[in-house]
């Protein structure tokens, strides 16, 4: 009851014309930033901090503006994933897997609307989770020591097989390549630079955004250049947009997926070391294991769009739990939000809920408002977004190239990053030629460092005793799930092999 009256107070704080205006502005800017490759939620928020300060906004309005941008960017990331096969930011990567094939089948409008609705469901439940469970959830985060985190990352890698390619060996190769790339940079456990060749730009490792934009966006441009005289220029006209809203039957079929994915994504968000990318990945691979009876995932299955979108938006809400309750950022974006809180003289941490209830509840109310606004904003705009498909590639591709270069240079201000991006573009082009999926590369780069560091932390803490990895019930549980997730498909592989081979002929280029 207390919670509800607090929430009502929060709505009183949040529902002023100024705050609603800020939320609307934030949602709109966030969606645009999320959709542009290169600009993700964390940069989007960072870019708008000066605006909040210049306007002289107080703590609550600033947070409302910035969290609206955050939620907006999480919504927006899916747009370019679905329409162009270029993820707008890291967590939207998984949405490419089924979103782009859906768009190719002429279901772009449905995919966009469905993903908008899934995003809403994920964010909605995550916000309720934040309200009702924040204090309890902190205890879950405290169950995870280095050994448990290592088990969690191992789980992610062991269920990777088959997620993005029908050819397991190619998937494994891509993941290993990603893990290798993750090793670049100064090793935090010894302070020794690895594979940096004395180049100071590489000391902090590769920037995931640079890698993503290079691998996905630039390689797309290269493929276009290569096919310029052939089919590519003519292909634009044959695209069918189809209906704009998903039929009820599709929504109904996706509902259990959305609910399960929201739960998984939220949990991943709550763990400070995991984050939204892991959330959307685990949501997708869980759904694939659970409901993909006919092997339609990866070929434009609506559930494959609903799962990662619900997952990553729920993770965005979940990541606010450790930020507010522990002062520990669960993702890059919450790290930025944390800095904003600090510069507004608010200390997040165990006492925030009792010391600054107006800030916390105003923020939570604003999350609800932003969420409804985003849904209202996104569904009618699907029609506009899908027009993008009618733009002929010879116009679109130069724009993609320009946005990629400007975006990456705008964030880092370093021409070295542009060279790295071009390098990844060429790598992506070569890998596409070999039908090697790109998603596991990014996952390997994204999760590889955290996985390695946690393994070494765990081993160092226990003085070199490897048994520490299976020392707690939680890590044993995670390992069991990981092993089952790894072995089951191998056992069942024979059963569905015929089906797979049939699909292999047509469908292995969908990365």
């Amino acid at each position, binding site marked *: 009851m207390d919670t509800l009256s607090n929430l009502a107070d929060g709505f009183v704080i949040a529902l002023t014309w*100024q705050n609603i205006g800020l939320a609307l502005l934030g949602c709109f800017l966030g969606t645009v930033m999320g959709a542009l490759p290169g600009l993700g939620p*964390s*940069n989007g*928020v*960072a870019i708008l*901090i*000066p605006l909040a*300060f*210049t*306007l*002289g*906004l*107080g703590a609550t*309005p600033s947070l409302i503006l910035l969290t609206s941008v955050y939620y907006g960017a999480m919504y927006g990331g899916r747009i370019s994933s679905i329409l162009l096969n270029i993820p707008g930011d890291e967590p939207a990567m998984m949405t490419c897997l089924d979103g782009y094939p859906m768009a190719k089948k002429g279901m772009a409008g449905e995919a966009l609307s469905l993903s908008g609705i899934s995003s809403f469901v994920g964010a909605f439940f995550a916000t309720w989770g934040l309200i009702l469970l924040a204090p309890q959830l902190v205890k879950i*985060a*405290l*169950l*995870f*020591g*280095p050994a448990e985190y290592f088990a969690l990352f191992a789980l992610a890698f062991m269920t990777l097989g088959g997620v993005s390619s029908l050819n397991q060996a190619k998937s494994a190769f891509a993941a290993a390549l990603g893990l290798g790339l993750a090793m670049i940079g*100064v*090793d*935090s*456990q010894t*302070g020794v630079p690895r594979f940096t060749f*004395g180049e*100071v*730009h*590489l*000391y*902090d490792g590769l920037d995931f955004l640079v890698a993503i934009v290079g691998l996905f966006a630039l390689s797309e441009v290269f493929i276009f250049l290569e096919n310029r005289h052939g089919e590519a220029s003519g292909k634009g006209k044959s695209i069918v947009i189809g209906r704009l809203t998903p039929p009820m039957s599709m929504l109904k079929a996706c509902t259990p997926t959305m609910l399960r994915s929201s739960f998984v994504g939220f949990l991943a968000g709550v763990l*400070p*070391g995991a984050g939204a990318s892991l959330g959307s990945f685990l949501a997708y691979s869980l759904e694939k294991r659970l409901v993909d009876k006919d092997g339609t995932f990866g070929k434009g299955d609506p559930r494959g769009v609903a799962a990662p979108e619900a997952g990553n938006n729920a993770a965005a809400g979940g990541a606010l739990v*450790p930020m507010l309750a*522990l*002062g*520990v*950022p669960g993702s*890059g974006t919450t*790290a*930025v939000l944390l*800095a904003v809180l*600090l*510069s507004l*003289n608010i*200390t*997040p*941490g*165990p*006492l*925030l809920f009792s010391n600054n209830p107006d800030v916390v509840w105003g923020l939570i109310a604003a999350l609800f408002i932003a969420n409804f606004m985003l849904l209202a904003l996104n569904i009618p705009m699907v029609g506009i977004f899908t027009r993008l498909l009618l733009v002929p590639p010879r116009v679109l591709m130069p724009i993609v190239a320009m946005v990629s270069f400007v975006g990456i240079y705008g964030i*880092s*201000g*370093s021409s070295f990053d542009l060279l790295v991006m071009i390098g990844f573009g060429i790598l992506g082009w070569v890998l596409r030629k070999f039908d090697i999926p790109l998603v596991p590369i990014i996952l390997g780069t994204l999760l590889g460092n*955290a996985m390695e*560091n946690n393994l070494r*932390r765990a081993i*160092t*803490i226990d*003085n070199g005793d490897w048994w520490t990895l299976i020392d707690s019930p939680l890590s044993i549980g995670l390992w069991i799930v990981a092993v089952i997730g790894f072995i089951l498909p191998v056992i069942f592989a024979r059963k569905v092999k015929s089906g797979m081979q049939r699909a292999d002929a047509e469908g292995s280029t969908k990365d």
Partner: protein
Amino acid sequence: MFNVTRLTLAAMIVGASALTVTAQGFTPENPECIAPANPGGGWDFTCRQVGKTMQDQGLIEKTMQVVNLAGGGGGVAFAQVVNKRNDDNDLIIAASAATSTRLAQGAYPGNNMNEVRWLASIGADYGVIAVAADSEIADLPGLLDVMKNDPTSISVAGGSAVGGWDHLKVLIAASAYGIEDVRSVKYIAFDGGGEAVTQLLAGSVQAFTGDVSEAKGFVESGDIRVIAVLAPERLDGEFADFPTAREQGVDAIGANWRGFYAPGGMSDEAYAGWVEKIAALYASDEWKEVMAANGMAPLDLQGAAFEEFVAASVAKIETISREIGIIQ
């Protein structure tokens, strides 16, 4: 409320800028602050907080533009300033003990501290060593005793990489206590102080080394206990309860200073102008509040005095790093 704030702000800027122009003769046209890390870290905080407060005080006319130039633990920004923006009068760069640590360890390849001009400090964050609230360890000598007798039984978590400032702080304390082979101290590097504290709460590690500001929230909530602050004397206000290492017989001091450097080719006029502005900021009541809220301790050094301080800090860290074998 929104309009009133804006108006006062505008009035303050107009009023104060008239003053500053006559008083100092130098006002940066497009003030810019490079935070040599991604948004969200300490350097980013330094730039943004100082930029905001300076604007509130009317010390600068335009909003301070904060540029995040991450890479190489600040090395990318350092190299960029030295090579490309050496005579920029509008530019300042956030720095801290981490900067002097890396300079001392030669981690900015080909660069040294004399290539830039050191402006001023804006405060210091003294190091703390903490244990979980229910830990059996009562005080700093108690912790160091266990570490001396059985180094494998204590894991110390910190937010910096091995060889970084959080690591060095605990080594300074250990060597002051007479632990000869400081390399036996088991240090576990986490991604930031917040994650390290969380692991202390989770019971994965036995002790935490970090800054006052990182420990603050958890001390208030009663989750962790600070057994030593590495300051010359006790801190003010709510932090006065923390015992210093010195009063427990361990002569260790570790301050993470925060401040700014400027390009080496900055004109003397601009240098003096910036030094004066940061001094004015430091003296303001608003900044005192920021420092109090973030657990920062006084460190009031400008111009030549600050330059000397950084040089001394670099020399000292070089000695420790050599002792523990991080540099040869």
